[in-house]
């Protein structure tokens, strides 16, 4: 088996003519007593799409996944797979694959027997089982370890066997619950690529749960940001990073400088953000997208790599916001340098600059001026101070 030449081709096209979504969640809810774990989740996953549920622990993403698997029954709403209502169907008749964080390989079976299990349960003929098990083991590049027991395999190998077991019966949806959570960083990265390769090669529809945003950004076509049992925002990694719809998303995805204040519009001079004596210009596009009422509590979000250290004499100009700051800490991160700074009003800021060509050797306590293009500021409502 070889990887397809253009990795993205297999994703969206494939051989399925009908374009119904593979998975539809409608107003899905789950409460445990008075505690609400999932509070009305709506989600459509297209065939062959890789969607990640990302959020802090306790945000309802794992509960949602478990309801799709059928391990928990929803308190409300519905689950549809390939157009069939699965809300009350027991897990063993749902035909979805699942990869668990702790692998959940059967300890009394060899790797090959583990992979064969779903095919045996489906009453496949032996010859067929042997062939498909060999294919699946080959797919995860463990063709020669089929006779080993799980305890004789490393964590990474066990998870690849678990992946082979979850895809060997060609499930309609593949669910993954923090599958790389128990592995160390290096292995995690190589397995991320492995999972992407396998799922693309098979054209699998994947619903993936993680709390690791980098993992979500690397792997997903779309990401659903979970917070307090709801989807806060659904979009591609770029959407979420460049156009966060809320302060929560802006804060959760990537590092952010968050300047809180009041949103103001004064005539031709364009929209502003004010706080005490400070005033920052906001781009028209950002203001339009946020659609806030003048005078409401808002937050201006600026990514650390969008802020630059400028000459202390520089006034900025109409397209720039400038502010004076003091260097608190200088951190070398290989290709980048990260500066932690404080504004005069005590607000903390983070700036990230490539080391190459910066030519600066800043020290703690140095006074600097920060500048960013007005267009690089994102505007969101600030629910906390509203």
């Amino acid at each position: 088996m070889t990887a397809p030449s253009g990795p993205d081709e297999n994703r969206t096209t494939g051989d399925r003519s009908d374009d119904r979504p593979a998975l539809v969640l409608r107003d899905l809810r789950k409460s445990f007593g008075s505690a609400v774990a999932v509070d009305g989740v709506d989600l459509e996953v297209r065939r062959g799409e890789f969607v990640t549920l990302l959020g802090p622990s306790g945000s309802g993403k794992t509960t949602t996944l478990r309801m799709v698997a059928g391990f928990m029954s929803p308190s409300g709403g519905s689950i549809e797979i390939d157009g069939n209502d699965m809300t009350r169907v027991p897990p063993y008749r749902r035909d979805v694959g699942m990869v668990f964080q702790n692998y959940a390989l059967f300890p009394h079976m060899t790797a090959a027997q583990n992979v064969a299990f779903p095919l045996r349960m489906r009453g496949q003929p032996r010859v067929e089982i042997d062939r498909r098990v060999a294919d699946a083991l080959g797919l995860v590049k463990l063709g020669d370890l089929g006779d080993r027991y799980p305890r004789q395999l490393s964590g990474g190998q066990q998870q690849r066997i678990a992946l082979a077991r979850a895809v060997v019966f060609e499930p309609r949806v593949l669910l993954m619950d923090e599958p790389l959570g128990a592995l160390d960083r290096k292995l995690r990265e190589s397995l991320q690529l492995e999972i992407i390769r396998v799922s693309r090669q098979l054209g699998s529809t994947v619903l993936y749960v993680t709390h690791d945003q980098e993992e979500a950004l690397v792997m997903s076509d779309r990401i659903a940001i979970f917070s307090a049992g709801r989807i806060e925002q659904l979009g591609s990694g770029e959407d979420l990073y460049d156009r966060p719809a809320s302060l929560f998303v802006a804060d959760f995805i990537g590092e952010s400088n968050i300047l809180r204040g009041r949103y103001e519009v004064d005539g031709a001079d364009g929209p502003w953000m004010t706080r005490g004596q400070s005033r920052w210009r906001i781009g028209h596009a950002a203001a339009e997208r946020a659609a806030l009422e003048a005078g409401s509590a808002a937050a201006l979000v600026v990514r650390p790599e969008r802020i630059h250290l400028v000459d202390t004499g520089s006034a900025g100009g109409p397209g720039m916001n400038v502010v004076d700051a003091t260097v608190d800490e200088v951190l070398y991160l290989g290709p980048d340098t990260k500066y932690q700074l404080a504004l005069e009003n005590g607000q903390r800021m983070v700036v990230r600059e490539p080391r190459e060509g910066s030519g600066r050797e800043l020290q703690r306590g140095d006074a600097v001026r920060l500048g960013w293009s007005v267009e690089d500021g994102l505007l969101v409502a600030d629910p906390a101070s509203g």
Partner: protein
Amino acid sequence: MAALGGLTVFYLLAPTLVIVPMSFTEARILSFPPEGFSLQWYERMVTDRQWSTGIVNSAQVATLTAILATVLGTLAALGLSRGRFPGRTAVNALTLSPLIVPVVVIAIGMFGLFVQWRISGSLIGLVVAHTALALPFVAVAVGTSLRTMDRNLELAAANLGANPRRSFFHITFPIILPGVLTGAIFAFITSWDEVVVAIFMTSARFRTLPVEMWEQVRQAVDPTVAAVSTTLLVVTTVLLLLLLVVRRQAPAQ
């Protein structure tokens, strides 16, 4: 410390260490140290009708008890660990009660009832009585296996297409099997050397080995008792060693 430990071990093992050499004596009475070396008391044990039927009876009772207690105890443990029903805590406590209630109390209670039912002094009566005593050991051993078993394995089995029945036979049962075997061995041993309940439940026509020993020692102390004791001991020890093997074979969780 080492000396104290050694002393404790000696204290625990001394009665055993005395009885084994005594069984090989040439003398006609129980004596320590033994005189000479002879297997005559073992020969006597096997050829004497009362002793040999005692051995056969004990083996029968213990085997049937082990089977019955293992089936019932495993089912009880499954129900208690997987089931959700009112009064679960109370049922759990009741299952374990034979471990706490004085054996003689159980014996008298059962005796009264079994006489009425006309099953006292029979194989079936004793098996039923011993099963009650042995069941908690099985329930505890299997319950421990079920608790330490990764619940995700059952979820994984369901996810991969196994209905509850197939999930049990293909996944749960093989994984808790070491616990089931441990329970079975404990159940066998519990019955094999039980004497209090057995005294109530046996009759002159039907005696187990420990009861036979007790009866004989009250009349005359002949070294056959030492040979029988050694035999009981060997069987129990072999079973305990088997237990260690079972434990070692258990798949890593």
